[in-house]
């Protein structure tokens, strides 16, 4: 009797373990499919020249030899746009998160929190058009040349607006996960609130805050829509904050629409490169986070 029950429970446990495994596999199917398709269709373009050569002339069915390339400047552009938008969004987002968690837990803070969530849901193309309109309006009011509306800076601003609510909300959640007893202990020792927040609460939550920042970077790294109206395009990649900038997602969008086989292969290979950049960023930051975490716990 008892044996029966144990066997049944063990069987149930196996069943559910199997089901969760199945779900993991199901979740991995789209990812592997994307990576495989990009690899398969981009294979002819993948070579050293793909990174070092400029984008070749389009190659129609009449030509027998097609060349590939041109991803280099766009990798540069994407990395610079990610860096610029992180410089804008991460400090502001972390400060918003600190306010929401440490100072504004009720009243206006809850209103801000609600609108931060709303901002997360705004479609990225709308953010692009918003930044475009705002920049153009400013330029026209100050009597500048409307052509300056397209720049790396306005592209980074659009990306930063998309990143901001993600960073703010994850920071807030991370800080809230730090037990109140830690804050009380610090305050009881006579440490002022701002120092408690910055040196004790934020430090304890640092790995989670950094994970939030990484999520924000991942979110914007693959965005094409907000860049069409802001960063525009630039075959040279990045040439200055006030100049238009090229990025991998917009390059993929432009090339895939064309009828030329070599450009379409370039677009697929660029998609693969974009996924790889995200994987490298993720792995690199995981290594840094582990170090940070070890350092924090090592100090206790």
């Amino acid at each position, binding site marked *: 009797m008892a044996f029966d029950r144990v066997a049944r429970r063990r069987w149930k446990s196996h069943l559910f373990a199997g089901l969760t495994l199945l779900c993991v596999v199901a979740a991995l199917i789209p990812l592997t499919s994307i990576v495989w398709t990009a690899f398969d269709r981009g294979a002819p373009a993948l070579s050293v020249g793909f990174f070092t050569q400029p984008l070749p002339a389009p190659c129609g*069915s009449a030509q027998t030899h097609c060349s590939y390339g041109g991803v280099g400047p766009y990798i540069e552009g994407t990395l610079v746009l990610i860096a610029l938008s992180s410089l804008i969004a991460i400090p502001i987002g972390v400060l918003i998160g600190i306010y929401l968690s440490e100072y504004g837990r009720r009243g206006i803070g809850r209103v801000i929190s609600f609108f931060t969530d709303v901002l997360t849901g705004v479609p990225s193309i709308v953010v692009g058009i918003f930044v475009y309109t705002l920049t153009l309006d400013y330029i026209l009011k100050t009597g500048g*040349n*409307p*052509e300056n509306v397209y720049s790396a800076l306005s592209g980074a601003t659009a990306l930063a607006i998309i990143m901001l609510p993600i960073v703010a909300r994850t920071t807030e959640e991370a800080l809230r996960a730090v037990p109140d007893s830690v804050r009380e202990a610090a305050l009881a020792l006579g440490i002022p609130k701002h120092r408690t927040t910055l040196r004790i609460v934020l430090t304890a939550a640092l790995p989670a805050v950094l994970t939030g920042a990484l999520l924000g970077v991942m979110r914007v790294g693959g965005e094409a829509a907000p860049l069409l109206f802001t960063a525009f*395009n630039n075959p040279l990649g*990045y040439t200055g904050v006030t*100049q238009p900038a090229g990025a991998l997602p917009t390059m993929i969008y432009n090339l895939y*629409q*064309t*009828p030329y086989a070599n450009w379409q292969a370039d677009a697929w290979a660029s998609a693969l490169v974009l996924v790889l950049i995200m994987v490298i960023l993720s792995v690199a930051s995981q290594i840094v986070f582990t170090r940070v975490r070890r350092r924090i716990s090592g100090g206790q």
Partner: protein
Amino acid sequence: MSGTTPNGAPPGASDLPQEMKGRQQSSSKMAYMAVIAVVVIVVIIVLAGWQLGWFKSNSSTPATASCPAPVSLTGAGSTFVFPLMYQWYTTYTGSTVNYESVGSGTGISDISAKTVDFGASDAPLTPAQKTNASGILQMPESAGAVAIIFNLPNVNFAAGKSLNVNGSVLAQIFLGTIMNWNNTPLQTLNPGLTLPIDPISVQHRSDGSGTTYAFTQFLSSASTQWATQVGYSTTVNWPVGTGDKGSSGIAGAVETTQYSIAYVDLNYALNNEIHFAAVENPTGAFILPSVNDTASAIADSKDSTNLPLGTGNWSGVDVENAPGAKDYPIATFTYLMFYQNPYAAYGSSYTLQKAENLVNFLNWTIHAGQSYSEGLYYVTLPSSVVAADVVTLDSMNYNGAAIPQAACG
């Protein structure tokens, strides 16, 4: 006091390691902060360097003494012309040109908002769009044709032959009055073929498109019912059919839908080796589209020798149904749009040097640039159209003064 350590802490085996640990912790934190500070400083220096152009090789090569120093020009619009435009601006050395293929509609709104130096559109400006952008000029910089593509399984064509269609039958198919492949008017055009009884699946563009503009213009001149009921524009209210986005969407739909018919840029059909129909021209010949037969069609069309000025209204220009025996009947221009007086349009920050860069580049596209057309399956402009474009470019001025022109790049 005897028994104290040099730094004044009381002796005790348990205290010492803790103190050391604390010191170690704060020094490692200092190191951590120092690393962050260094990284931030390096990032700032690298960004500043980029800004100042440290990492760019200065390989500007002025062509002749009369050429202005190259500046950066921006253009936006047509996805159709993007590959040709890319070929142009990577070959041309007189200026750095930066083109974003966002679609003809966005190209027109961008040049109207003056956020670019030139816009590109496969359809001309409507009179309303023209009033919206005062001082705007438009000129054809390339041309194309519309191919009729279809999916007829189990129908075998003789070598060099294809499905025969004409404007009237196409209008009836797209109006929904011819619903089956073996319908009499269609069968009559194809005497040697046994067409199936299956219903025709009509596919059309769902997005605004210059290809739709040219195709519906062709249907309007072939059928009064089409002209009154539907008309021609970049988007129309289709009586029947399924919409697909972009040339790739149309081509994909025809490939996967049996018994379907659609229209696509000739350029797209040729590069992807999609089968297309022979279209009847005014002499009664059925012509399979090719770049050469489209070029001769544009040269022969009555409007090509009677083009409006750059400032004029191009929305009535029709280069279809040319009278030549071998002319393909569905031909179309694609346009560049820019301002006649950049100083007045953009303000005093638009330098004469930039205006010279713009006019020299535009001039290059309609002369030397045309030699790149055929290899990419674009239609080379006939000399009558180039002559009209030259008049348009010569009418440009910088705050009233003529803009010096030079052959650069």
